[in-house]
């Protein structure tokens, strides 16, 4: 019998008992509290700011404003352009932009002081939608900015000089004009997609503490090393002097990826000379970032047999006031609008423009939901016009496994046709009728293969896995625990996965793009393998036996019939019963045994199928059955994988039916939890099924692929396709609210000849 191994507890237990410490639960001795004064205007010059009365309020410690920026090493920051001031400087570019941050002894005093700041603006002409932003005489939000290359994502943005367009990305293959000339039919439709709030249940919260030239930040950050990098630039600090610690995070979905309020809060601490905590309200979180809205026009040519000859796409994204990661969203929207189809002739132009609205940013499958909404809606429109069954129409055009979406991309590593079959079966297993609406997706996750891990085997047999991969609820800690347990042949209960901390844990690019299972999973596997080899060598040497006579068993090493616990092994080897083995690994683009030269490292695929019920008197729609299918290679954490698919699908339901962060005259009109509706328990499909396809053919540990984003993609087009098929109405503008459905029904009935 192996010896007893101490258990480490686990974070799921902490979460159900209320003991899990989230970013907003952090307190630091001497901490003060910050509240933010925000711009009420979409675009304006700040002509006067007088903080005298606010500073005079008892309990106010300091006020940060644009005047302080001159003393910072780099007052403007960004991921593709340094376009964003740490706090508004001389002008504001959207309603909600921070213009002053009051630091006080209590949140209430800080809040009260906001009303005492005397600030005057001169309004400037503004633009609150991307169409206006690209008009020739549109007011400009920014001057000509220098693109930063390879700073966060690989590559750089290609802005159009003299315009608001901060990114222009094009794909051109073959000859679309010739294809359209010889086509039997050419279809052109425009689909629109609104800005959408992330609505993580925990609004952004950051606590920052400057001590001399050292800065410590506790942040609910998905990308702690990106936060570290930007903070080091803003304050002129060495990376080693910027420590980013990530407690539990109450939801991310991309809204806490790259860098958000961290520079602002750190600057407040720098100004105040005190640790400062800033906890946004949910309303403020909705003014911090959002998914980019889009308008997508597709022109698709088909021959008489229903084969797609060519596709043109004009994608225009509403980027908001600062670029953030919008340039990457622009690229991905272009790649993702193609779909898993064999199309020889492509002409895609994808642009993102600055507007005086909440900054656009990464959100679960960047550019994916916008692109798939358009493409999969049009697939059904074309099928209907050609009087071909929509599933059959897809079959005629689908790429086989190994087919290429683009020559520059890795061949498709999934069988979408087979996945459609599974979706259809799952739907009929839950009810009599076949699916009313189907949609498919294949997206290319922007996975940067750069990230490390330490696996520390401690003397009592417990194991610490250290990686900067943030658990935002997707279950990455369970994935890493399982990988380490399997590689080291230890009980998972003996393994603790530590939270991200840039001071103690190796670099990782960040948590997003479905990359952690593959990249950090491999890093942990490699580090555990390194620890394993060291342990076996140590045992062979200390016990004076051949290397092949010793093996790892739970809690120790075994030599034939005898099991030697780790503390006894260390005692024999080191003279005391202490010490540890440190396994380490860094996954890089040139990792041995991996093919990381081609992008994407794997395809994230999804099929969704649904049936719906509609109250034609009110336009109220319910999804009665939903099936989601994903090819994920291998589920290292099966419960987590299924949960990711289900949760993504319900986020997709929100995108489809309810969610729209709306602006009228530049003013956000529903950026509150009352005005903005996300799905609740009563909204979910009455019956739902998730099918995970596991062929162990992914690049990650045990053949895993990344996952977690794809399930969102097919939902909106599948519902729209169901509405068209069952009720004869075609909606091309999200969300599909009861009012829009009702109006479409009225229009349908008035069209009767």
């Amino acid at each position, binding site marked *: 019998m192996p010896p007893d191994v101490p258990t480490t507890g686990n974070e799921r237990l902490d979460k159900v*008992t209320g003991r899990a410490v989230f970013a907003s639960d952090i307190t630091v001795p001497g901490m003060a509290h910050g509240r933010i004064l925000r711009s009420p205007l979409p675009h304006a010059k700040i002509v006067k700011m007088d903080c005298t009365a606010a500073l005079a309020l008892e309990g106010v410690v300091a006020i940060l404003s644009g005047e302080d920026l001159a003393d910072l090493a780099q007052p403007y920051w960004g991921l593709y352009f340094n376009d964003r001031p740490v706090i508004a400087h001389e002008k504001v570019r959207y309603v909600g932009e921070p213009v002053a941050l009051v630091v006080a002894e209590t949140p209430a005093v800080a809040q009260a002081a906001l009303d005492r700041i005397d600030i005057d603006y001169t309004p400037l002409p503004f633009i609150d939608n991307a169409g206006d932003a690209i008009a020739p005489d549109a007011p400009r939000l920014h001057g000509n900015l220098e693109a930063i290359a390879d700073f966060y994502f690989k590559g750089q943005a290609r802005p159009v000089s003299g315009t608001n367009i901060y990114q222009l990305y094009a794909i051109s293959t073959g000859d679309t004009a010739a294809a359209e000339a010889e086509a039997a039919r050419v279809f052109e439709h425009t689909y629109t997609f609104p800005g959408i709030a992330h609505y993580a*249940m*925990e609004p952004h919260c950051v606590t920052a503490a400057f001590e001399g030239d050292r800065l410590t930040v506790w942040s609910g950050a998905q990308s702690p090393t990106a936060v570290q990098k930007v903070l080091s630039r803003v304050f002129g600090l060495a990376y080693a002097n910027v420590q980013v610690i990530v407690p*539990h*995070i109450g939801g991310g979905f991309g809204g806490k990826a790259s860098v958000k309020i961290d520079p602002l809060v750190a600057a407040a601490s720098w100004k105040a000379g005190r640790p400062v905590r800033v906890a946004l309200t949910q309303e403020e979180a909705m003014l911090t970032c959002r998914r980019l809205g889009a308008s997508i026009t597709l022109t698709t040519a088909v021959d008489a047999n229903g084969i797609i000859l060519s596709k043109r796409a004009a994608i225009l994204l509403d980027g908001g006031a600062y670029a953030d990661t919008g340039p990457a969203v622009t690229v991905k929207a272009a790649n993702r609008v193609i779909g898993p189809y064999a199309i020889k002739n492509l002409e895609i132009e994808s642009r993102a423009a600055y507007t005086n609205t909440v900054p656009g940013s990464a959100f679960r499958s960047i550019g994916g939901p916008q692109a798939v909404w358009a493409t999969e809606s049009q697939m059904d429109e074309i099928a209907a016009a050609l009087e071909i069954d929509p599933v059959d129409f897809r079959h005629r055009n689908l790429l086989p496994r190994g087919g290429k979406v683009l020559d520059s991309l890795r061949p498709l590593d999934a069988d979408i046709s087979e996945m459609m079959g599974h979706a259809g079966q799952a739907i009929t297993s839950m009810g009599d009728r076949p699916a009313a609406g189907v949609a498919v997706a294949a997206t290319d996750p922007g996975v940067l293969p750069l990230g490390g891990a330490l696996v520390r085997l401690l003397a009592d047999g417990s194991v610490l896995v250290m990686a900067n991969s943030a658990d935002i609820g*997707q279950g990455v800690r369970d994935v890493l625990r399982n990988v380490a347990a399997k590689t080291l042949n230890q009980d998972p209960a003996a393994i603790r996965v530590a939270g991200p901390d840039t001071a103690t844990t190796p670099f990782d690019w960040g948590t997003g793009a479905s990359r952690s299972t593959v990249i950090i999973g491999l890093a942990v596997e490699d580090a555990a393998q390194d620890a394993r080899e060291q342990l076996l060598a140590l045992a062979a040497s200390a016990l004076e036996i051949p290397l092949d006579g010793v093996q790892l068993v739970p809690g120790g090493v075994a030599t034939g019939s005898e099991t030697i616990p780790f503390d006894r092994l260390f005692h024999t080897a080191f003279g005391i019963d202490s010490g540890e083995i440190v396994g380490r690994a860094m996954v890089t683009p040139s990792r041995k045994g991996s093919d990381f030269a081609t992008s994407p490292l794997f395809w994230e695929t999804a099929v969704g199928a649904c049936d719906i019920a509609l109250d034609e008197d009110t336009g109220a729609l319910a999804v009665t059955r939903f099936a989601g299918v994903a090819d994920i290679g291998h589920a290292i954490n099966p419960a987590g994988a299924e949960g990711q698919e289900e949760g993504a699908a319900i986020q997709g339901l929100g995108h489809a039916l309810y969610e729209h962060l709306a602006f009228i005259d530049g003013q956000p009109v529903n950026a509150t939890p*009352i005005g903005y509706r996300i799905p609740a328990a009563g909204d979910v499909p009455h019956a739902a099924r998730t099918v995970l396809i596991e062929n162990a053919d992914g690049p990650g540990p045990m053949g895993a692929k990344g996952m977690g984003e794809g399930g969102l993609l097919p939902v909106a087009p599948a519902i729209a396709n169901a509405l068209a098929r069952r009720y004869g109405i075609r909606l091309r503008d999200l969300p599909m609210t009861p009012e829009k459905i009702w109006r479409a029904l009225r229009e349908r009935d008035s069209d009767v000849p």
Partner: protein
Amino acid sequence: MTASLDLTFTLNGDAKTARVAPNTLLIDFLREACQLRGTKRSCDMQICGACTVLVDDRPVSSCTTLAADIDGAVVTTIEGLGGPDGLDPVQQAFLDHNALQCGFCTPGFILSVKALLHANPAPSHEEIVEHLNGNLCRCTGYHKIIDAVESLVRP
């Protein structure tokens, strides 16, 4: 505001007294004065249920309740349910059914379910779903939460 109120109440099984300012919110009283941080702040306007606590076995949004209103009441927060070595059946059901992801909404959901089962030990499926409408979760898609509650009612 210098006036203050003296409260006598029961918190997680212990008799307590406290002096609070009349405008103190229950969420702030619990999180700051009592250092019970399992009660989570999210919407601040009684929409999301993350701050749910039990007052006399009824679910209450502590973000929009005055601390003064718990005078004489029995208050239960997530910390008042089972600890790691003796989970409440609702906590265990959430674990068993993987009814949590990020976990931020989880204390509120668990207490909300406690209140449901206290008032109605055998709710129908529709009653469960209707009750859970008062709590928002952005991660799970709700199916596993509903399954967890169903497992307690119809094992």
